[in-house]
Every structure is written in C-alpha cells, then in structure tokens.
C-alpha cells in the first residue's frame, strides 16, 4: 500500500470513526431527549387531566392553568399545550412563538386515557410528539388536553459543536501520530526492501529496474521472490557441495594413492621449491641420509643436509632459470652410513621445457649393491690378472732362459720345463676354478644330482691326488665306512670340491706328513672329512678361509702357491648340495675339513 494511500486510509477511517462517534452520541442524545420528553409530556398531561375542566378552560378571559403553567415553564422542545374537543375544536392553547396547534381529531376510543401520537407541524417539517389525555367536561363529550413537543432533531447545536469538536480533534490528531509511528516502524522494512531490490537486481533476477516507491505488498512479493530464489540457490549449492565433496574425496584418494606410490618407491624422493626449501620428502630419505623428515621439511637445505657434496649440489638449483640448469648425477657415501653408496639425480622441474624452474626433483638411489658389485668385479679382475701375471712371469723367464745359452745345461732345461709345466697347470687350475665360480655366481646353477656310490667316488679322488702326494712324500689315506649309503651328488661339481680340499691338505702339509680322507654316517648326517697334520690355520683366520681369494699366510711366512679360490669354491658347491663345511684346526697341528650332508634328503632324489 502506498504511503499516501495509507494516509488517505487513515484519514478516512479516522473521519469515519469520528462520524460514528458523533452519530452514536447524537442518537444517544436523541433517545435520552425522547425519554425526557415522554416523561415530561406524560407527566404534564397526567397532571393536567386531573384538573377540573374549569381550571383548564376558565370562562371568559381568565388565565387558564395552561397559561400560568407554561408562562414560566418553557421546556426546550415545547411546541404547544392545548385543550381541544374531540373533533379538534380548540378551546384553549399555549403555543410556542411561531407555531400553531395542529389539527388532530381525537376520540375517546383512543386507547388508554393517556395517549401518544406523532403529528406533522404545519409550519415546519418537524415532527411533533403529542401527549393527550381526556378531561371530563361535566356533561357532554370529553375534551382533551394535548401537549406537543418537537421530536429531537439530529442537529448539532452551538454548544454541542464545541463538544464534538473537542471529541473530534484528538481523534483526528491521532491520524498523523499513528501515521508517523507507522512510517517509523516501516522504516526497517523500507530498508529491507531496498536491500532486497539490490540483491535481486544484482543477480539480474528481475529485469524490471527496482522501483523507488516503497510498497509493503511489493516488499512481501520481493521477500517471497528472494526466499524462493535463495531456496533454489541453496538446493543448487547443496548439490554442488555434494559434488565438490565427492570430487574432493576422489582427489584425496588419488592424492593418497599417489603419495603411497611415491612413498613405496625404492628410491627416496625430494622436491625442492625454487628457494631451496623441501616441499616433499618421501620417508626413505630419512634412512638414506640419516636426517629427520621434520627437519628436512621445515628448514632450508643448509640447515638439514649433513653431506657437503650433496648440499653443494642442491644449492646450485636455487635459481630461477632453467637454461642454467641441467640434470645432474652424483655418487657419494652418506655420512650416516658410510658403507653404503648413494646416487643422487637432481633435475630441475619445468613446465613444458620453458620458463623458470618451479622446483627441483631429487631422486636418491641406494646403489650400494651396484657399487659393491662393481668394486668386487674390479677387485676380481685385478686379482685374476695378478694371479695370471705371476705364472706368466715365471713361464716367460724360464722360456727366455731356454732360449739362451743355458739351454745347454740339461739340469736347467729340465728344471725350466718342469717349472713351465707346473705354472701352466696352475694357470689351468685357476681358469677352471674361475669358470666354475662364474657359473655358480650367475645363479640358477642347478646341480645335476645322480646317485653316487661314495666309495667309488672317493677312490677316484684319491687316485687323482695320489701322484702329487707321492711327489711330496706325503702319505695319503682313504677310509670309507663299509655301509655308507649312496649320496645324491652332482659328480663333477663335488669332485672339484673334494679335489680342492685334498690338494689344499697336501699343499699345506710338510714333507712326511699325512692326509686322511674319511667318509662315515653319523646321526642322519653323511660326513666326508679331509684331515692333515700340516701347518694348520691360525684361529683369527679360520673364519676367513672360505672367502674368495683369501690365502692364509701360514706360520712360516711363505706364500704357498694357490689362488685362494679352492676353499671358496668347495664351500659354494657343498652349500649347493644343502650341506656345509666345517673346519677344525690348530697352527702347527694340522687342519680337518668336514663336509656335512643330510642323509634323509638323499633318499628323496626326486626333489633335487
């Protein structure tokens, strides 16, 4: 509702209220007045009808009671007081100025003695309320006393006007008062309306430009529109939210998976930002570099990196330009675990090969095995070539000698030939050992086991080694238990192992010594032992004898011929057969090498 309409409405309603008030008041007045008049009229008529006729209509010109009564007693609406005959002939009257008694025939039959009726005034339009009563005339038809009053009009008199004005004024003044109160109360609504208009207008939901006029109905409709709109948006947002939550969850899941994958990589990963701070570090870095993840993630490289070389490399990546940087690789021994070897691959991270690097990716690889393998391989090559150079040296020198004049000397010739022969044999043995070792180390070398009769087998070995034993005047003995079961062995491999053990025994025995090869069964174990009474192995070296290229120095400080591979090979072979070799030895007393093989497994040939 518009403001002016509200105003109009207020004014109209106030006026209506006033009118009603006045109307009610007037009608109340009218009623009261009527009652008064009636009371008066009837009372007067009643008292007048009790008077004798002579008093009412005295003969001659004497004053009637009427005149004397109404001379001084002039009620407000009094019109007339008259005595008339039944047919209306006027006998006496007192009238107000300007009025006459209206004609009004009466008869005795009219109801009760005192009656009431209305008549029209002849002069004015007013209605007269007449009260009449019969009077006995003392013979003849009765006369009637008639008193007439004006019926009160709905008119506002002079005094009454001020009264009504006083009544109307406050009522009317209420209007602006209420109006202003209303306006004030509606101010927040107006503001709300303006806001709504703004909100709705901004969204463009309403094509009609906001109306300047504040209108409560419009406000309501705007509120409704806004609520609906907001509702719709909320539904939409809820859906979006659900969608986002799902997406978020998926992202999180993907992220977790990715993170898990990164953490599971065997390499350690670091991502540095251009300032050199670590933004990501996988857990492996902790173990690899001996640093704490917390320190790595919170401080710059300077703070946590303990290895100088690595620090220098990483600090080089603290620049922006990609063109200055390339991937770099470095190997080093980390301070925390110096026996391991790490490879670092540092690489700037760039977007589409252009622009500044947004970080550095650092991959840490534990290349200890690789490194050890390389070192071992290098060592091996060095060892082998050294081993080969010695025999070659001897052969070369003796050949030179054969080529020179000393070839005339028979002894020299024989000696030279012998030495050359021995050295060639030595080299051949080395090459064979190396080949066997290489086959074993490649792995997947499955022994071809067959059922072997141990007594025959050991006899073979014995026969093989006997010439050498005899040449050095060492007694070689063989002792095989009678009921020794057959064994599942790879004949060729095992032959190598046993030959190595026996030749070792012979090598490290003094002239006149004794070597015993024995085979027996004991508690589910098959035991083949080779015992000598030679120089023995010092206690501190016993743990190392089975290592590759290890040569015990021996008590006499002489290096015995041999490459340090025999025992290593023997051990590997025995282990392939799921057995083990043990050593009992004391320097100066001799050594006993025992091969232990499980007998139960020998019965299960099919499994090997």
């Amino acid at each position, binding site marked *: 509702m518009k403001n002016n309409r509200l105003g109009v409405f207020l004014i109209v309603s106030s006026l209506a209220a006033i009118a009603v008030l006045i109307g009610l008041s007037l009608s109340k007045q009218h009623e009261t007045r009527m009652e008064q008049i009636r009371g008066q009229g009837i009372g007067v008529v009643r008292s007048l009808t009790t008077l004798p006729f002579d008093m009412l209509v005295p003969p001659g010109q004497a004053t009637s009671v009427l005149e004397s009564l109404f001379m001084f007693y002039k009620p407000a609406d009094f019109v007339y007081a008259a005595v008339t005959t039944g047919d209306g002939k006027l006998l006496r009257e007192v009238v107000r100025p300007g009025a006459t008694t209206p004609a009004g025939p009466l008869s005795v039959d009219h109801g009760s003695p005192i009656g009431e009726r209305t008549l029209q005034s002849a002069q004015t339009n007013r209605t007269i309320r007449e009260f009449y009563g019969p009077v006995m005339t003392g013979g003849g038809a009765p006369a009637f006393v008639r008193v007439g009053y004006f019926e009160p009009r709905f008119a506002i008199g002079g005094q009454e006007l001020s009264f009504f004005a006083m009544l109307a004024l406050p009522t009317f003044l209420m209007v602006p008062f209420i109006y202003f109160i209303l306006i004030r109360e509606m101010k927040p609504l107006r503001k709300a309306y303006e806001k709504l208009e703004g909100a709705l207008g901004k969204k463009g939901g309403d094509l009609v430009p906001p109306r300047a006029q504040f209108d409560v109905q419009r406000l309501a409709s705007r509120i409704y529109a806004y609520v609906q709109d907001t509702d719709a948006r909320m539904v939409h947002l809820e859906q979006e939210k659900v969608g986002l939550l799902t997406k978020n969850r998926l992202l999180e899941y993907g992220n977790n998976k990715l993170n898990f994958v990164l953490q599971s990589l065997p390499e350690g990963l670091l991502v540095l930002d251009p300032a050199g701070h670590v933004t990501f570090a996988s857990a492996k870095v902790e173990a690899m570099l001996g640093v704490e993840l917390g320190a790595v993630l919170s401080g710059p490289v300077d703070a946590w990196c303990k290895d100088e070389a690595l620090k220098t490399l990483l600090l080089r990546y603290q620049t922006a330009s990609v063109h200055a940087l390339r991937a770099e690789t470095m190997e080093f021994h980390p301070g925390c675990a110096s026996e391991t070897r790490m490879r670092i691959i540092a690489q700037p991270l760039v977007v589409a090969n252009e622009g500044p690097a947004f970080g550095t990716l650092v991959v840490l690889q534990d290349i200890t095995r690789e490194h050890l393998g390389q070192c071992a391989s290098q060592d091996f090559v*060095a060892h082998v*070539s*050294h081993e080969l*150079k*010695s025999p*070659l*040296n*001897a*052969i*070369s*020198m*003796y050949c*030179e*000698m054969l080529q020179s004049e*000393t070839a005339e000397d028979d002894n*020299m010739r024989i000696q030279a030939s012998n*030495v050359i022969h021995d*050295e060639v044999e030595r080299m051949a043995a080395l090459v064979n050992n190396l080949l066997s070792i290489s086959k074993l180390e490649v792995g997947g070398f499955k022994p071809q086991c067959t059922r072997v009769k141990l007594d025959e087998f050991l006899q073979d070995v014995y026969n093989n080694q006997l010439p050498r034993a005899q040449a050095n005047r060492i007694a070689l003995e063989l002792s095989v238990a009678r009921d020794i079961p057959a064994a599942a062995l790879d004949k060729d491999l095992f032959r190598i192992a046993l030959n190595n053990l026996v030749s070792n025994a012979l090598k490290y025995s003094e002239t006149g010594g004794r070597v015993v090869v024995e085979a027996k069964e004991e508690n589910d174990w098959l035991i083949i032992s080779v015992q000598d009474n030679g120089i023995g192995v010092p206690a501190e070296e016993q743990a190392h004898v089975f290592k590759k290229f290890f040569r015990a*120095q021996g008590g006499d*400080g*002489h*290096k015995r011929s041999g490459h340090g591979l025999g025992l290593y090979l023997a051990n590997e072979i025995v282990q392939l057969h799921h057995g083990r070799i043990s050593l009992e030895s004391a320097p100066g007393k001799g050594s006993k090498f025992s091969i232990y093989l499980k007998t139960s497994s020998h019965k299960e040939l099919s499994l090997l």
Partner: protein
Amino acid sequence: MNKKSVLVVDDEPHVTRVLRLALEREGYDVTTACNGVEALGKLQEGLPDAMITDLQMPKAGGRTLCESARRLYPAKDFLILVMTSMTAWEEREWVARLANTEFLEKPLSARRLTARLASYFNEQPCQGALHG
C-alpha cells in the same frame, strides 16, 4: 774390480731362482730375500749396488722396503728396480719421488734386467771396494 752385488727381493721362488741364475751368469753377486722385512735385514748386513724388489709381498711390501731403504741409507745411493704387474698411478707417484728408483714391468725379462743394470753401472764413476 769387485763384483757388483744385487739384492733380489720377491716372494715367488721361481722369480728369485731365475733372476739369481741370470744375474750370476752376468757376474753379479746375488742375495735374495722373500719379503720386505728380510730384505731390510739383508740391507743392514751389507748394502748392495742394486736392489730388485717385487711390490706385493707378505709382511712388508715393496713400497715400505724402498721408502725405508732410502730413509735409512740416504748417503748411499744404489739403484732400486721395482717389479710390478700393477701399473697403477699411485705407484708411479711414490716411485718418481724416490731417488734412483725405477719401475720394471712384469712379465720380467732377464735380458731387460741385465741390460738395465749394465747401463746403470757403466754410467757410474768407478768406486772403490764396496762391502758386498
């Protein structure tokens, strides 16, 4: 003129034997040792005019022997020939630092050795009798 004395140090018996034969035929007085410690002992007994030594030996290797010899007997200058099958750079360094010390590569040739000794002794001014 006295025979020149040569000390042969090697743990391989073949080497010492062959060298001894070759050198004795050339008229040198040969003593042998099979490791650095023994060699130092022999040096104490009497300094040779030349020493041939292997590098890899038990107890004390060729390097220890050479460096000790040069440190112990600075006044006496004798040729040291170092036999080596390993031509590692580290070896070249310390050999070059020592006076009058050279490499002799394996496999050995007795001929090369005797030739080298001969040329060395021809360069030397004649000296009086050396305890040998």
